[in-house]
């Protein structure tokens, strides 16, 4: 079999297989960031185990000047540093691709594909000769493969050195030298033994200006800090923990008085039941409060979420979804809490949910969650996931809207309570938008009322009266309808759209894609690839629950809408069916739920399969 070569400059996927706990994460991050600094768009995904040390871990980097910052499904270059997964890693390389391994030890000769290029580098041997201390040897072996890749892929050593300087800072500046020595070990070896650079390589470009590399838990926390959240309560759970870690770090820097006093309280609760209770208590008191959790935490919070819905108490919940059910796979990604969040709690409950697609949107939506929660006096979810929350994404720089003013909702001040003619009634609907007025404790005696999760009338008094109970529930349904015009509208793109006289005219094609959250980029790439094959799809990305009119229209104007989501049971499709009641058979599920981020290749092949089968029948 003749060996072809992947010949993609700035357009390939590299995957690094290592053992966790060996420091490979920082080496991989260095690799990704150096490509970004060379001006070439890059995606980095970390597939790590729920473990501290010793289990297999992978890092996937896609170098993509076409701008597809998502998994394709191909692997053009494998760095196989883990003997345990070598066979699998070896098999995964796309024909014509490359495999780099540590040739200190002989590799299994049975595994010898002749359609890929094998590159041996005696990393351990060289590193062990150069460094003495055992832990240093382990760490430096990773840095040495970065050096080897720098030689093979033509990465700029000056960029790598600069990144190391920034990472170590002044305090640990002396670590830069040994790290650069390790880089040199790999780099010099490949330059001497291989024809560098390879046909697959990186070339300096100018395509990352105005962008940053950041994860979505950090940006969500940043949003919370700048939105003025003052109480954060949480219980540690992967993959949400870094939200509160980041919030704590930001507040520590920007939310202290000159005397070092904190203008915030972070409560590490005894469990998620308490965490959401604290958020409700702070929200009832009038502060902006939030929690960060994942699916199992939402399960525990259900009773309080029902309480918050019924008593109309503001709360913000960041759900960083992971693989369920049960403990599931805590370090793998999924969108399997869509229904849980939307309908959390016993009784008739519905919650506003915002679905960011990437860290930039996680920042914007985080801020909007606080405004919506206070405006509508209800729990609001930021439904993110592990892929958005924990992977580093290249996104446009976050922008601050100078006109932003927190929307504190309809809260009566002491002055307005003073001039109130009758008694304050908590659950009336004077503005006919379903949103009542509320009062805060301690402000004025005329504002006092008793918040109860038990049956209450529009006056806020206890009731078991059929009509009084129902009246309040019906108003809450109206409030939810009002929310539809306040939540972020979907992103919709048509294949055929023209502007006539300043008016946008669209002509929908037969088929549409509809997705949510982190499915965005993979579906976009699939759509792009399918178009090159002559198949056109319009595109809709839902960004909030309640669903807006635009989503309903999008479904109505297409023959088939492929609903792409990352769970087994088609939860988004189920919600669309229940909420919008579209024509039967119109929605077709494309599902992905193995714990890895969605790949464009999967979407593409599923759609092609479906349409082929439909044609045949």
């Amino acid at each position, binding site marked *: 079999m003749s060996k072809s070569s992947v010949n993609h400059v700035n357009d390939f996927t590299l995957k690094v297989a290592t053992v966790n706990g060996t420091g490979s994460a920082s080496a991989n991050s260095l690799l990704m960031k150096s490509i970004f600094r060379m001006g070439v768009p890059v995606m980095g995904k970390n597939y790590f185990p729920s473990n501290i040390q010793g289990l297999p871990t992978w890092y996937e980097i896609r170098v993509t000047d076409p701008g597809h910052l998502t998994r394709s499904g191909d692997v053009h270059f494998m760095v196989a540093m883990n003997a345990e997964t070598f066979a699998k890693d070896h098999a995964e390389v796309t024909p014509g691709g490359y495999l780099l391994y540590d040739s200190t030890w002989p590799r299994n000769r049975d595994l010898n594909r002749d359609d890929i290029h094998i590159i041996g580098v005696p990393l351990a041997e060289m590193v062990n000769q150069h460094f003495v201390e055992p832990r240093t040897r382990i760490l430096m072996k990773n840095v040495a493969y970065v050096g080897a890749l720098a030689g093979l892929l033509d990465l700029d050593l000056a960029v790598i050195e600069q990144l190391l300087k920034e990472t170590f800072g002044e305090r640990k500046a002396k670590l830069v030298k040994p790290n650069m020595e390790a880089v040199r070990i790999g780099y010099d070896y490949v330059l001497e033994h291989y024809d560098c650079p390879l046909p697959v390589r990186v070339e300096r470009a100018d395509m990352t200006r105005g962008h940053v590399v950041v994860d979505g838990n950090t940006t969500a926390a940043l949003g919370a800090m700048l939105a003025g959240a003052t*109480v954060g*309560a949480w219980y540690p759970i992967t993959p949400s923990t870094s939200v509160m870690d980041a919030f704590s770090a930001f507040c520590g820097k920007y939310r202290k008085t000159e005397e*070092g006093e*904190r203008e915030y*309280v972070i409560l590490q609760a005894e469990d998620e039941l308490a965490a959401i209770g604290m958020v409700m208590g702070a929200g009832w008191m009038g502060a902006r409060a939030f929690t960060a959790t994942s699916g199992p935490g939402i399960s525990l919070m259900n009773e309080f979420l029902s309480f918050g819905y019924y008593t109309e108490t503001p709360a913000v919940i960041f759900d960083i979804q992971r693989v369920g059910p049960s403990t599931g796979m805590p370090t793998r990604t999924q969108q399997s809490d869509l229904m849980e969040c939307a309908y959390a709690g016993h009784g008739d409950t519905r919650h506003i949910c915002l679905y960011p697609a990437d860290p930039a949107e996680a920042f914007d939506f985080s801020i909007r969650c606080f405004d919506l929660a206070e405006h509508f006096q209800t729990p609001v979810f930021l439904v993110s996931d592990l892929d958005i929350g924990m992977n580093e994404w290249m996104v446009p720089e976050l922008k*601050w809207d*100078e006109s*932003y003013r927190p929307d504190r909702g309809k809260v009566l001040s002491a002055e307005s309570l003073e001039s109130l003619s009758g008694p304050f009634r908590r659950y009336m609907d004077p503005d006919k938008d379903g949103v009542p007025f509320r009062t805060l*404790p301690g402000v004025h005696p005329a504002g006092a009322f*008793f918040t109860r999760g038990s049956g209450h009338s529009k006056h806020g008094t206890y009731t078991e009266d059929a009509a009084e109970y129902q009246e309040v529930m019906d108003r809450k349904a109206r409030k939810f309808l009002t929310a539809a015009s306040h939540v972020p509208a979907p992103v919709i793109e048509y294949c055929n759209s023209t502007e006539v006289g300043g008016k946008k005219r669209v002509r929908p094609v037969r088929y549409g894609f509809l997705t949510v959250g982190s499915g965005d980029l993979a579906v976009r790439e699939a759509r792009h690839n399918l178009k090159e094959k002559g198949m056109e799809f319009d595109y809709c990305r839902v960004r909030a629950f309640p669903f807006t009119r635009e989503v309903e229209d999008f479904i109505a104007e297409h023959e088939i809408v492929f609903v792409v989501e990352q769970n087994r049971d088609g939860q988004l499709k189920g919600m669309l069916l229940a909420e919008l009641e579209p024509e039967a058979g119109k929605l077709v599920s494309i599902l992905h739920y193995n714990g890895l981020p969605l790949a464009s290749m999967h979407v593409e092949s599923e759609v092609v399969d479906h349409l082929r089968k439909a044609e045949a029948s």
Partner: protein
Amino acid sequence: MSFMKKPRAHHSDLPRNSLGYTIRDYEGGMSTLCAGCGHDSITAALIQACWELDIEPHRVAKMSGIGCSSKTPAYFLSQAHGINAVHGRMPSIATGANAANQHLHYLGVSGDGDSLSIGFGQFAHAIRRNVNMLYIIENNGVYGLTKGQFSASADVGSRAKYGQENEQPPIDPVLTAISLGCTFVARGFSGDKDQLVPLIQAGLRHRGFAMIDVISPCVAFNDHEGSTKSYAHTREYYHPAIHADFIPPREEIRTEYEKGKAMPVELHDGSTIVLRKIDVDHDPTNRAGAIAYLERHREAREIVTGLLYLEEEGKDLHAWNRTVGDSLVDTQSRSDAAAILEEIQAGYR
């Protein structure tokens, strides 16, 4: 029904406190509890305590969980905000509310089911955080609203209304609270208002978590012969160990106290409680001693009451957090947000 307003009879000659309020200004809705319920006596004690302390009614946040006890915040301080949380979860609501605004008086009412079973974890952790609040357990050893099941505070050998005997050992909130590090631990009896009112006042003035376990007989399901939480049984085994006299700031200590038997303790706001020892072998500032004392009397089946343990120097939640003095409720948009964002993002390039 609890939404029924109490008729307001105007007695112009009712005494007024320094804020100009009569005791009527501290009342709430009509109680819907059974006639003779101990909880109503506790409500009356709370009303009296707040009136005497000159607390602005609307500067109190009333909180409770679920159960008969948890209904009572509707029956006092109608000018204060109240919140009736989910079962056993009032401590987390109180913690969050207090975190947001440390300037209100937090008054939590719970029951033995609410605190010692479903909410045991939250009860323990609110103590651990030393949330500045008064936390009352209205303890009757029984589930009233679901009609008479034993609770976790039921004593071994106590008989239920229809004859079953409890065989599992009780959880004692007082011993539990002291061993968890609670900074103010007291026990009272709904039938002894003279003792209870000053305990409530001291608890409200204490900075930190003040727990008062109040034996409060359930007339419907646990006030029969054979029950150890009945009025009769409680009176028979009632053992006041310490009487607390609450003396507001700037007021003189007028009562003559017998030397060696009285211990004045100054609270953080300048008020004083004088602990009058009825039992001389009890020192309420010695944690190990307090536990040993309680264990001795538990073996004798005595119900020891009074302010049983006090630590006035403990740090509360905000002291640990080093929170600013202001409430955290007001959020303004920051004028320097764009600059902060720019500074942070410099590290992401």
